[in-house]
Protein backbone atom coordinates (compact mmCIF):
# COMPACT_ATOMS: atom_id res chain seq x y z
CA UNK A 1 0.00 0.00 0.00
CA UNK A 2 2.69 2.43 0.95
CA UNK A 3 5.21 1.48 -1.70
CA UNK A 4 3.42 3.37 -4.54
CA UNK A 5 3.14 6.46 -2.36
CA UNK A 6 6.77 6.13 -1.50
CA UNK A 7 7.59 5.84 -5.23
CA UNK A 8 5.60 8.98 -5.94
CA UNK A 9 7.44 10.90 -3.24
CA UNK A 10 10.80 9.68 -4.49
CA UNK A 11 9.85 10.67 -8.04
CA UNK A 12 8.84 14.15 -6.94
CA UNK A 13 11.98 14.74 -4.88
CA UNK A 14 14.10 13.40 -7.71
CA UNK A 15 12.38 15.73 -10.12
CA UNK A 16 13.04 18.69 -7.87
CA UNK A 17 16.60 17.76 -7.07
CA UNK A 18 17.71 16.92 -10.56
CA UNK A 19 18.22 20.07 -12.55
CA UNK A 20 16.46 18.63 -15.54
CA UNK A 21 15.31 21.43 -17.81
CA UNK A 22 13.17 21.05 -20.87
CA UNK A 23 12.48 23.85 -23.34
CA UNK A 24 9.44 25.98 -22.70
CA UNK A 25 7.91 24.99 -26.02
CA UNK A 26 7.49 21.46 -24.74
CA UNK A 27 5.77 22.39 -21.46
CA UNK A 28 2.42 21.82 -23.18
CA UNK A 29 3.31 18.25 -24.00
CA UNK A 30 4.65 17.59 -20.54
CA UNK A 31 1.55 18.96 -18.86
CA UNK A 32 -0.70 16.78 -20.95
CA UNK A 33 1.57 13.80 -20.31
CA UNK A 34 1.35 14.44 -16.59
CA UNK A 35 -2.41 14.58 -16.85
CA UNK A 36 -2.47 11.30 -18.77
CA UNK A 37 -0.19 9.73 -16.20
CA UNK A 38 -2.45 10.74 -13.34
CA UNK A 39 -5.52 9.58 -15.17
CA UNK A 40 -3.97 6.18 -15.61
CA UNK A 41 -2.77 6.16 -12.01
CA UNK A 42 -6.20 6.83 -10.58
CA UNK A 43 -7.70 4.39 -13.05
CA UNK A 44 -5.28 1.79 -11.69
CA UNK A 45 -6.23 2.56 -8.10
CA UNK A 46 -9.93 2.27 -8.95
CA UNK A 47 -9.37 -1.01 -10.79
CA UNK A 48 -7.41 -2.26 -7.81
CA UNK A 49 -10.26 -1.40 -5.46
CA UNK A 50 -12.77 -3.05 -7.81
CA UNK A 51 -10.53 -6.10 -8.08
CA UNK A 52 -10.26 -5.53 -11.84
CA UNK A 53 -6.60 -4.59 -11.77
CA UNK A 54 -4.44 -6.07 -14.52
CA UNK A 55 -0.77 -5.22 -14.52
CA UNK A 56 -0.18 -5.42 -18.25
CA UNK A 57 -3.19 -3.27 -19.03
CA UNK A 58 -2.11 -0.75 -16.42
CA UNK A 59 1.51 -0.40 -17.46
CA UNK A 60 0.79 -0.35 -21.20
CA UNK A 61 -2.06 2.05 -20.59
CA UNK A 62 0.21 4.35 -18.68
CA UNK A 63 2.80 4.69 -21.40
CA UNK A 64 0.34 4.51 -24.26
CA UNK A 65 -1.82 7.28 -22.82
CA UNK A 66 1.18 9.53 -22.29
CA UNK A 67 2.41 9.03 -25.84
CA UNK A 68 -1.07 9.41 -27.27
CA UNK A 69 -1.70 12.62 -25.36
CA UNK A 70 1.61 14.11 -26.38
CA UNK A 71 1.03 12.97 -29.97
CA UNK A 72 -2.38 14.55 -29.99
CA UNK A 73 -0.98 17.81 -28.70
CA UNK A 74 1.76 17.67 -31.35
CA UNK A 75 -0.80 17.04 -34.08
CA UNK A 76 -2.91 19.89 -32.74
CA UNK A 77 0.02 22.29 -32.93
CA UNK A 78 0.68 21.33 -36.52
CA UNK A 79 -2.95 21.43 -37.59
CA UNK A 80 -3.61 24.72 -35.88
CA UNK A 81 -6.39 23.13 -33.82
CA UNK A 82 -5.99 23.00 -30.08
CA UNK A 83 -6.33 19.27 -29.95
CA UNK A 84 -4.61 19.09 -26.59
CA UNK A 85 -7.77 20.61 -25.18
CA UNK A 86 -9.57 17.44 -26.21
CA UNK A 87 -7.02 15.37 -24.35
CA UNK A 88 -7.24 17.61 -21.31
CA UNK A 89 -11.01 17.38 -21.40
CA UNK A 90 -11.04 13.59 -21.70
CA UNK A 91 -8.43 13.04 -19.06
CA UNK A 92 -9.95 15.62 -16.76
CA UNK A 93 -13.40 14.03 -16.95
CA UNK A 94 -11.98 10.56 -16.45
CA UNK A 95 -9.88 11.78 -13.56
CA UNK A 96 -12.98 13.14 -11.83
CA UNK A 97 -14.94 9.98 -12.54
CA UNK A 98 -12.17 7.76 -11.23
CA UNK A 99 -11.70 9.82 -8.11
CA UNK A 100 -15.46 9.84 -7.52
CA UNK A 101 -15.59 6.07 -7.93
CA UNK A 102 -12.65 5.64 -5.57
CA UNK A 103 -14.41 7.83 -3.07
CA UNK A 104 -17.64 5.84 -3.34
CA UNK A 105 -15.85 2.53 -3.03
CA UNK A 106 -13.92 3.72 -0.01
CA UNK A 107 -17.11 5.05 1.61
CA UNK A 108 -18.87 1.78 0.88
CA UNK A 109 -16.04 -0.21 2.41
CA UNK A 110 -15.99 2.09 5.38
CA UNK A 111 -19.74 1.88 5.94
CA UNK A 112 -19.63 -1.90 5.63
CA UNK A 113 -16.92 -2.13 8.21
CA UNK A 114 -18.87 0.22 10.48
CA UNK A 115 -21.99 -1.91 10.14
CA UNK A 116 -19.92 -4.95 11.05
CA UNK A 117 -18.59 -3.13 14.06
CA UNK A 118 -22.13 -2.16 15.07
CA UNK A 119 -23.29 -5.75 14.69
CA UNK A 120 -20.43 -6.90 16.82
CA UNK A 121 -21.36 -4.45 19.47
Amino acid at each position, binding site marked *: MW*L*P*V*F*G*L*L*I*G*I*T*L*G*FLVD*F*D*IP*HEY*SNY*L*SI*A*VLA*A*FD*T*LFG*GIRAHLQNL*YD*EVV*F*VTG*FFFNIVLAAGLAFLGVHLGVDLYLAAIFVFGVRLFQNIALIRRILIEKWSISRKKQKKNL
Partner: protein
Amino acid sequence: MKKKLAFSLVTLIAGFMLAIQFNLVNQPVVSDTRDMWELKNDLLKEQQTQVDLIEDISKLEGKIASYETKKNESKEEVLRDTLTELKTDAGLTEIKGSGVIVSIQPIKEEILLGERIEYISPVLLRRLINEMYRFGADEISISGQRYISSSVIRDINGQPKIDGYPLVDYPVEMQALTVNPKKLKQRIEGSELMDDFFIDNFEVQIKTPSGELTLPAYQNEINVEHMKPIMDGGES
Protein backbone atom coordinates in the same frame (compact mmCIF):
# COMPACT_ATOMS: atom_id res chain seq x y z
CA MET B 1 4.67 -7.78 -4.63
CA LYS B 2 5.50 -7.63 -8.28
CA LYS B 3 2.23 -5.88 -8.90
CA LYS B 4 3.10 -3.25 -6.36
CA LEU B 5 6.55 -2.81 -7.82
CA ALA B 6 5.22 -2.00 -11.25
CA PHE B 7 2.70 0.36 -9.77
CA SER B 8 5.39 2.05 -7.72
CA LEU B 9 7.55 2.46 -10.78
CA VAL B 10 4.70 4.12 -12.59
CA THR B 11 4.01 6.42 -9.68
CA LEU B 12 7.71 7.26 -9.56
CA ILE B 13 7.69 8.27 -13.19
CA ALA B 14 4.49 10.23 -12.73
CA GLY B 15 5.98 12.01 -9.73
CA PHE B 16 9.10 12.82 -11.66
CA MET B 17 7.11 14.30 -14.51
CA LEU B 18 4.97 16.24 -12.10
CA ALA B 19 8.01 17.74 -10.38
CA ILE B 20 9.60 18.72 -13.66
CA GLN B 21 6.41 20.29 -14.90
CA PHE B 22 6.09 22.11 -11.60
CA ASN B 23 9.63 23.42 -11.94
CA LEU B 24 8.98 24.46 -15.48
CA VAL B 25 5.86 26.39 -14.68
CA ASN B 26 7.23 27.97 -11.53
CA GLN B 27 10.42 29.34 -12.97
CA PRO B 28 10.80 32.73 -11.36
CA VAL B 29 10.55 35.63 -13.71
CA VAL B 30 13.75 37.62 -13.41
CA SER B 31 12.78 41.23 -13.66
CA ASP B 32 15.06 43.55 -15.53
CA THR B 33 16.24 46.22 -13.14
CA ARG B 34 18.85 47.85 -15.31
CA ASP B 35 18.49 51.55 -15.96
CA MET B 36 18.96 53.24 -19.28
CA TRP B 37 22.71 53.73 -19.01
CA GLU B 38 23.33 50.14 -18.03
CA LEU B 39 21.14 49.02 -20.90
CA LYS B 40 23.04 51.25 -23.26
CA ASN B 41 26.33 49.86 -22.01
CA ASP B 42 25.12 46.30 -22.40
CA LEU B 43 23.84 47.07 -25.87
CA LEU B 44 27.21 48.53 -26.75
CA LYS B 45 28.93 45.41 -25.48
CA GLU B 46 26.68 43.17 -27.51
CA GLN B 47 27.21 45.31 -30.58
CA GLN B 48 30.96 45.05 -30.09
CA THR B 49 30.63 41.29 -29.84
CA GLN B 50 28.59 41.29 -33.03
CA VAL B 51 31.19 43.36 -34.83
CA ASP B 52 33.92 41.01 -33.63
CA LEU B 53 31.99 38.00 -34.81
CA ILE B 54 31.33 39.56 -38.19
CA GLU B 55 35.01 40.36 -38.51
CA ASP B 56 35.89 36.78 -37.65
CA ILE B 57 33.43 35.49 -40.21
CA SER B 58 34.77 37.73 -42.97
CA LYS B 59 38.33 36.75 -42.10
CA LEU B 60 37.52 33.08 -42.25
CA GLU B 61 35.59 33.49 -45.46
CA GLY B 62 38.54 35.30 -46.97
CA LYS B 63 40.74 32.42 -45.92
CA ILE B 64 38.39 29.92 -47.48
CA ALA B 65 38.33 31.90 -50.71
CA SER B 66 42.11 32.13 -50.81
CA TYR B 67 42.39 28.40 -50.14
CA GLU B 68 39.94 27.69 -52.93
CA THR B 69 41.78 29.85 -55.43
CA LYS B 70 45.09 28.39 -54.34
CA LYS B 71 43.71 24.91 -54.78
CA ASN B 72 42.44 25.67 -58.27
CA GLU B 73 45.56 27.54 -59.25
CA SER B 74 47.86 24.91 -57.93
CA LYS B 75 45.99 22.19 -59.79
CA GLU B 76 46.16 24.14 -63.01
CA GLU B 77 49.71 25.14 -62.38
CA VAL B 78 50.82 21.61 -61.68
CA LEU B 79 49.12 20.42 -64.83
CA ARG B 80 50.61 23.24 -66.83
CA ASP B 81 54.06 22.62 -65.37
CA THR B 82 53.79 18.94 -66.16
CA LEU B 83 52.65 19.71 -69.68
CA THR B 84 55.53 22.12 -70.25
CA GLU B 85 57.94 19.65 -68.77
CA LEU B 86 56.69 16.88 -71.00
CA LYS B 87 56.76 19.16 -74.03
CA THR B 88 60.31 20.18 -73.21
CA ASP B 89 61.30 16.57 -72.81
CA ALA B 90 59.63 15.65 -76.06
CA GLY B 91 61.42 18.49 -77.86
CA LEU B 92 58.29 20.42 -78.73
CA THR B 93 59.57 23.67 -77.30
CA GLU B 94 62.34 25.97 -78.24
CA ILE B 95 65.24 25.51 -75.91
CA LYS B 96 68.19 27.71 -75.05
CA GLY B 97 71.45 26.97 -73.38
CA SER B 98 75.16 26.59 -73.70
CA GLY B 99 76.41 24.16 -76.27
CA VAL B 100 78.58 23.42 -79.25
CA ILE B 101 78.15 23.91 -82.98
CA VAL B 102 79.38 21.07 -85.13
CA SER B 103 79.64 21.98 -88.78
CA ILE B 104 80.30 19.32 -91.36
CA GLN B 105 81.50 20.30 -94.80
CA PRO B 106 83.35 18.72 -97.69
CA ILE B 107 87.09 19.01 -97.68
CA LYS B 108 87.99 21.99 -99.79
CA GLU B 109 90.91 20.28 -101.44
CA GLU B 110 88.61 17.64 -102.84
CA ILE B 111 86.39 20.29 -104.35
CA LEU B 112 89.43 21.90 -105.89
CA LEU B 113 90.45 18.59 -107.30
CA GLY B 114 87.07 18.32 -108.93
CA GLU B 115 85.91 15.26 -107.16
CA ARG B 116 82.21 14.73 -106.89
CA ILE B 117 80.90 15.45 -103.47
CA GLU B 118 78.95 12.65 -101.93
CA TYR B 119 76.24 13.31 -99.45
CA ILE B 120 76.85 12.62 -95.82
CA SER B 121 76.10 9.03 -95.01
CA PRO B 122 73.05 8.74 -92.73
CA VAL B 123 74.77 5.92 -90.89
CA LEU B 124 77.67 8.22 -90.07
CA LEU B 125 75.33 10.99 -88.95
CA ARG B 126 73.40 8.63 -86.72
CA ARG B 127 76.66 7.46 -85.21
CA LEU B 128 77.76 11.03 -84.62
CA ILE B 129 74.49 11.81 -82.90
CA ASN B 130 74.71 8.72 -80.74
CA GLU B 131 78.26 9.52 -79.80
CA MET B 132 77.32 13.09 -78.96
CA TYR B 133 74.58 11.92 -76.70
CA ARG B 134 77.04 9.55 -75.14
CA PHE B 135 79.45 12.42 -74.61
CA GLY B 136 76.87 14.40 -72.69
CA ALA B 137 74.77 16.31 -75.22
CA ASP B 138 71.26 16.98 -74.01
CA GLU B 139 69.49 18.32 -77.08
CA ILE B 140 70.57 18.21 -80.69
CA SER B 141 69.36 19.90 -83.84
CA ILE B 142 70.63 19.42 -87.36
CA SER B 143 70.27 22.21 -89.91
CA GLY B 144 67.53 23.77 -87.87
CA GLN B 145 65.70 20.47 -87.47
CA ARG B 146 65.25 19.35 -83.92
CA TYR B 147 66.36 15.82 -83.34
CA ILE B 148 63.95 14.03 -81.04
CA SER B 149 63.46 10.46 -79.91
CA SER B 150 61.31 9.60 -82.91
CA SER B 151 63.38 11.47 -85.48
CA VAL B 152 64.74 9.50 -88.37
CA ILE B 153 67.81 10.11 -90.47
CA ARG B 154 67.80 8.04 -93.61
CA ASP B 155 68.57 7.94 -97.23
CA ILE B 156 65.65 8.96 -99.38
CA ASN B 157 66.29 8.94 -103.12
CA GLY B 158 69.99 9.14 -102.56
CA GLN B 159 69.76 12.12 -100.22
CA PRO B 160 70.23 11.97 -96.48
CA LYS B 161 67.16 13.39 -94.80
CA ILE B 162 66.17 14.09 -91.26
CA ASP B 163 62.41 13.76 -90.81
CA GLY B 164 62.04 14.40 -94.50
CA TYR B 165 64.22 17.51 -94.55
CA PRO B 166 67.22 17.08 -96.88
CA LEU B 167 70.72 17.62 -95.54
CA VAL B 168 72.37 18.64 -98.75
CA ASP B 169 73.38 22.21 -98.11
CA TYR B 170 76.87 22.55 -96.77
CA PRO B 171 77.98 23.09 -94.18
CA VAL B 172 75.54 20.88 -92.35
CA GLU B 173 75.38 22.50 -88.99
CA MET B 174 74.56 20.60 -85.85
CA GLN B 175 73.83 22.31 -82.61
CA ALA B 176 74.05 20.43 -79.37
CA LEU B 177 73.14 21.73 -75.94
CA THR B 178 75.17 20.52 -73.05
CA VAL B 179 76.13 21.57 -69.59
CA ASN B 180 79.79 21.51 -70.38
CA PRO B 181 80.41 22.53 -74.02
CA LYS B 182 84.21 22.44 -73.83
CA LYS B 183 84.25 18.89 -72.60
CA LEU B 184 81.84 17.81 -75.33
CA LYS B 185 83.97 19.51 -77.94
CA GLN B 186 87.11 17.80 -76.74
CA ARG B 187 85.48 14.42 -76.60
CA ILE B 188 84.10 14.70 -80.14
CA GLU B 189 87.46 15.89 -81.43
CA GLY B 190 89.17 13.05 -79.73
CA SER B 191 86.84 10.38 -81.07
CA GLU B 192 87.34 8.21 -84.15
CA LEU B 193 84.39 9.87 -85.82
CA MET B 194 86.62 12.58 -87.17
CA ASP B 195 88.56 9.97 -89.11
CA ASP B 196 85.40 8.35 -90.34
CA PHE B 197 84.16 11.67 -91.66
CA PHE B 198 87.54 12.30 -93.18
CA ILE B 199 87.38 9.00 -95.04
CA ASP B 200 84.10 10.22 -96.55
CA ASN B 201 85.85 13.48 -97.50
CA PHE B 202 84.17 15.58 -94.87
CA GLU B 203 85.74 17.71 -92.31
CA VAL B 204 84.18 18.48 -88.99
CA GLN B 205 84.65 21.75 -87.19
CA ILE B 206 83.50 22.23 -83.66
CA LYS B 207 82.94 25.61 -82.08
CA THR B 208 81.94 26.55 -78.61
CA PRO B 209 80.15 29.88 -78.92
CA SER B 210 80.25 32.05 -75.83
CA GLY B 211 76.61 33.01 -76.10
CA GLU B 212 73.57 30.83 -75.73
CA LEU B 213 72.41 28.56 -78.47
CA THR B 214 68.77 28.35 -79.38
CA LEU B 215 67.44 25.04 -80.59
CA PRO B 216 64.16 25.21 -82.50
CA ALA B 217 61.14 23.20 -81.53
CA TYR B 218 60.28 20.01 -83.34
CA GLN B 219 58.13 21.10 -86.24
CA ASN B 220 56.31 17.97 -87.32
CA GLU B 221 53.49 16.19 -85.63
CA ILE B 222 54.45 13.39 -83.32
CA ASN B 223 52.41 10.39 -84.30
CA VAL B 224 51.36 8.37 -81.33
CA GLU B 225 50.12 5.04 -82.51
CA HIS B 226 49.51 2.88 -79.52
CA MET B 227 48.23 5.40 -77.00
CA LYS B 228 45.14 7.56 -76.91
CA PRO B 229 44.07 10.22 -74.45
CA ILE B 230 41.31 9.47 -71.95
CA MET B 231 38.50 11.98 -72.33
CA ASP B 232 36.15 13.38 -69.68
CA GLY B 233 38.34 12.91 -66.70
CA GLY B 234 39.00 9.26 -67.17
CA GLU B 235 37.59 6.25 -65.43
CA SER B 236 39.85 6.12 -62.45
